[in-house]
């Protein structure tokens, strides 16, 4: 296990949190979208995180335990949207109901804040690892 491996793990975290931010942004932007090419209202999205082994499994102890995070897919909400009575709406059905996305603005904003904090935490790791490497390079000089 080397310092560069730690950076790899932190960088994978950055990518994952950015995906989280992107899906939250998509959900927020489409919180009221009633029309999609697939038919029906917008369905909220969530990134699916999966661990990914780092490098050589025959490495020392820590090498086996260290895991990167990997966005394996983006899950689309399988549940249909919520029904709201609004006969005047252009996308209202025959009985006057419109399907709206099952998006909670509060929930999405929480995801945005959380993703932002996790992103910054990973940046701290990258910075600290770089400082460690620079300190090591100075040994004996």
């Amino acid at each position, binding site marked *: 296990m080397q310092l560069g491996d730690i*950076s*790899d793990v932190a960088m*994978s975290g950055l990518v994952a949190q950015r995906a989280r931010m992107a899906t939250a942004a998509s959900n927020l932007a489409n919180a009221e979208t009633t029309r999609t090419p697939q038919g029906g209202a917008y369905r909220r999205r969530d990134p699916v995180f999966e661990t990914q082994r780092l490098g050589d499994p025959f490495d020392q102890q820590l090498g086996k335990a260290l895991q990167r995070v990997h966005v394996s897919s983006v899950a689309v909400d399988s549940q249909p949207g919520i029904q709201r009575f609004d006969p005047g709406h252009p996308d209202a059905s025959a009985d006057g109901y419109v399907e709206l996305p099952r998006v909670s603005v509060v929930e999405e904003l929480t995801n945005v804040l959380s993703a932002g904090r996790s992103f910054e935490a990973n940046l701290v790791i990258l910075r600290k690892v770089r400082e460690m490497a620079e300190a090591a390079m100075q040994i004996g000089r």
Partner: protein
Amino acid sequence: MNRIYGTAIPDLETQMRFRMVRQGALASNVANADTPNYRRLDVTFEEALHQANGADPSAAHRVTRGPRGTRPDGNGVDRDQEVIGMVRNAGAFQDMATVLARIYVMRRMAATGQLS
């Protein structure tokens, strides 16, 4: 002459040249992340080619082209992964540069008897 440089200096020089070339390939990938039908480039270091043709520094560099992309524009480059690759590659280069400098300091000290 080999006694002056040993084996570490030539080996490090070779690897540094390789890393520099690879950095170019990865930079091309990042720059072309949105270019239609672009296929990613990479460079690998082939030890066998190096042994066979040591005089030419680029002889051991094998340039590969990735597969056609699955996106509508024919591009399959993951910009994030390319940037991560560049960071890793640059880090390896930098480590070698630092280590090479220290080796030169040591060999110079042994050769001249000067302690600084």
